[in-house]
């Protein structure tokens, strides 16, 4: 649906653009000599961990560490398709999603959750970025936003060195969230402070094999 | 090619004879034949940067007439060299800029000399002027030449890469902001405890020096004059 009919604004703006460009010709093709990958000998796992710690995220290893990452939180929302074997520890896992009988939780219910546990789509080592694209084990955006703690399970094969390697792994039309550490602000004297509106704690559980 | 044209710049023509004299001495010591075409005036930078393009074009054409016949032109000013190299192509379509060299470029890149045989037993700090450093890309060329001077003590200028606030007519149109920038530059210069503050542009040195005679601090000097001081 388009609401562009208003007084011909669309046509007028397009006409202005064309007029402005009437003798502009074509721009030369953009050079692309930048890197699209890190040096092959880079230890991307070590680099990712280094970046995550730099952002004050917590890093854990192995599927059994999920319980430790959840750190005693009682109510943990999970996407309905989260693998069963990740739902370990003493928490109550509350599914959210359109699968089987699971319905979406209300905002109020979500606000009552202590943590969220999800997978992800990819991770970029050089910038310590975890990427979600609403794919398997990730759920909708709200569940990774409202609870104050986000525990992400990351598989080794999901880690790439460079941003350019990660983008092709994402569904470009799906809602995406790229996460680099817990929520933060530098608005006061340009000093970085972790913890504003998004989850104030980010835990990454690394599955090496 | 041993003959070079000397463009002294209008500022040196009017105020600072010692700088072009120094350039002549340095070049002659290296065996160059220096030619000073008397019809030279100004490269047109002030007009160009103040928005008087037509006037700048007129002056650019005169410059090309005076210097067009030289294989190499040397000038002791980063900003004037940048003017010819960056703005003339737009103003007149001239490619003369490739043959116009700021002194340190000429010495290092054309003559291939880093040690010009000078001695200057003083404490000196260096301000990298904006147009020389950024527009012309001089990098540390003048500093490399100064490092080779015997008995010189080079000290780092804090916040060296910050503009002194001159900017041509900026110093008049935005006098207060310019003065605030100058005050910081003078404070940093004084903090070095240097006897001399050297730079590659006497226009900037006029500005900084005009502040330093009031605030106290090092004496402004074009680095060419240091390079010309006899060993």
């Amino acid at each position, binding site marked *: 649906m388009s*609401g562009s009919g208003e007084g011909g604004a669309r046509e007028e703006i397009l006409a202005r653009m064309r007029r402005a460009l009437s003798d502009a010709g074509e721009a030369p093709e953009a050079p692309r000599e*930048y890197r699209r990958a890190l040096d092959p000998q880079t230890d991307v796992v070590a680099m990712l961990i280094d970046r995550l710690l730099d952002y004050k995220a917590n890093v854990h290893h192995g599927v059994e560490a999920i319980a430790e990452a959840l750190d005693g939180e009682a109510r943990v929302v999970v996407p309905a398709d989260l693998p069963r074997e990740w739902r370990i520890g003493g928490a109550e896992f509350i599914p959210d999603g359109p699968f089987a009988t699971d319905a979406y939780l209300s905002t109020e219910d979500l606000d009552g959750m202590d943590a969220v546990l999800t997978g992800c789509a990819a991770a970029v080592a050089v910038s310590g970025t975890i990427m979600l694209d609403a794919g398997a084990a990730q759920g909708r955006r709200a569940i990774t936003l409202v609870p104050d703690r986000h525990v992400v399970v990351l598989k080794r094969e999901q880690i790439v060195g460079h941003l350019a390697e990660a983008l092709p792994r994402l569904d470009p039309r799906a809602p995406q969230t790229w996460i680099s550490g817990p929520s933060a602000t530098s608005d*006061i004297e340009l000093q970085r402070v972790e913890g504003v509106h998004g989850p104030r704690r980010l835990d990454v559980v690394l599955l090496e094999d | 090619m041993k003959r070079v044209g000397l463009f002294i710049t209008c500022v040196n023509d009017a105020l600072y004879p010692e700088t072009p004299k120094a350039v002549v001495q340095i070049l002659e010591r290296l065996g160059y034949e220096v030619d000073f075409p008397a019809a030279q005036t100004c490269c047109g930078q002030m007009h160009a940067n103040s928005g008087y393009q037509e006037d700048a074009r007129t002056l650019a054409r005169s410059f090309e007439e005076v210097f067009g016949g030289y294989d190499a032109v040397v000038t002791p000013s980063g900003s004037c060299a940048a003017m010819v190299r960056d703005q003339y192509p737009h103003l007149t379509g001239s490619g003369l800029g490739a043959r116009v060299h700021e002194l340190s470029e000429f010495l290092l890149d054309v003559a291939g000399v880093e040690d010009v045989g000078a001695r200057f037993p003083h404490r000196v700090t260096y301000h990298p002027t904006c147009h020389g450093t950024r527009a012309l890309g001089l990098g540390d060329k003048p500093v490399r030449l100064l490092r080779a001077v015997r008995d010189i003590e080079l000290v780092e200028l804090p916040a060296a890469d*910050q503009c002194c606030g001159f900017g041509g007519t900026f110093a008049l149109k935005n006098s207060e902001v310019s003065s605030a920038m100058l005050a910081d530059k003078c404070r940093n210069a004084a903090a070095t405890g240097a006897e001399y503050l050297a730079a590659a542009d006497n226009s900037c040195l006029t500005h900084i020096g005009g502040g330093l005679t009031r605030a106290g601090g090092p004496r402004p000097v074009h680095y060419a004059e240091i390079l010309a001081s006899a060993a």
Partner: protein
Amino acid sequence: MSARKRGTAVPTSAAPASAVVPAASLIPADAPFPKAAKVALGMPQLRKNLAHATGTIRAKRAKVAGELDDWEHLRDSAAAIKADVQHRLPELAIEFERNAIAAGATVHWARDGAEANRIAVRIVREAGAEEVVKVKSMATQEIELNEYFEAQGLRAFETDLAELIVQLAEDRPSHILVPAIHYNRTEIRDIFDQRMGDAPAGLTDDPAALAEAARLHLRRRFLSAKVAVSGANFAVAETGSLVVVESEGNGRMCLTMPETLISIVGIEKLLPRFEDLEVFMQLLPRSSTGERMNPYTSVWTGSREGDGPRDVHVILLDNGRTRVLEDEVGRQALSCIRCSACLNVCPVYERTGGHAYGHVYPGPIGAILAPQLEPGRHDDLPYASSLCGACYEVCPVKIDIPEVLVHLRQQGPHAAGEQAAMGAAKAVMARPRLWRTALRAARLGSLPWRRKGFVRRLPWPGSRWTVSRDLPVPPKEDFRSWWKERQR
């Protein structure tokens, strides 16, 4: 890292707050730049805050930009991609529109700010809402959306921490990225204490405590808001996607929780392909906050069942941009990705702050954007620069700001006295013999000051120089006589 977490520095000021005086109320927005700048220069706390903040961010940017050995290649690509976008703007805008509509968005076009505001208000009313939450957006500041909403009986709540500070203080933003950069922590504490309404008792000036206060203040509003208004950092033509880059999670809240989302997007924000983000998302965070990556980036394409807003609107905004596009030198200003690196390195901005520029886009980029977006106004901004070139050096999309500044200066208007002086100077300099005569005259005329060596005080307009600098006098013997002597 917060002071609290480091366990250092117990905050000093639970002391009684002094009344908040918004900086914008002191620095006149419609005064000529030199005049407004003079006021700002006379505010020592403001200057201290600015110097501290810009110094901090400069160092961070330099460090993370320096980490990438292909930084210059990235800049070259970004500049070329943006130039390509400008050349293909009609085609890309239509492609974006088609893909966004296919994904369920409603796309509107607005010739100017007033039209965009009217469309936004209509959508809010249709959603049955009386208030909106906002993601920090330069476009909505540019069109004064908040003011228009207020006049229409609607309320727009800023949710970015710095925007919140500015809104509470009833101030104007002074920086593109960090609108409250002119306030220090103590002043921010005072603003929260006096204006927030629900600030925790005994609030300290620890940045972590201040961030916590903002979290508590906005949380209910986020979870209950029906409508959000955002801008966008990028609009991807190939997919019809919008991208918002942020840090705090307020953006995610606004983009995810409400039923209705209105995004106001300048037409210059288009990128041809999703893949182009691999260039811009390396350059933008490193250039703006000096981070390898910002904490949160949201990408959305139309609406998606069960995930985020159902009613998604995009308002494509012209508001002078097509006029900027006409100027083949000036149009590179449309490449700007609003990182504000140029502000942070600018020696003028560092000393005056943003208010003196009298426009939502301050600093070097504002000095070339404002006069082009609003011709005839802000004619003094192209002169608010010493042409030092620090801005061009850091610009991630290689906008040659000094080049555009000089270009805009050519378009005048020039004061009559200045024109006369420049004309006279040219006339003399264009005639070598006249030039030599003038130099001789200057040497003679300065005889009275020869002994002293400089002039300390000149009448106006020379006083603009001598207010802070001595003026050297011509030497007794010039280079030309020395040269002539030698030739003999």
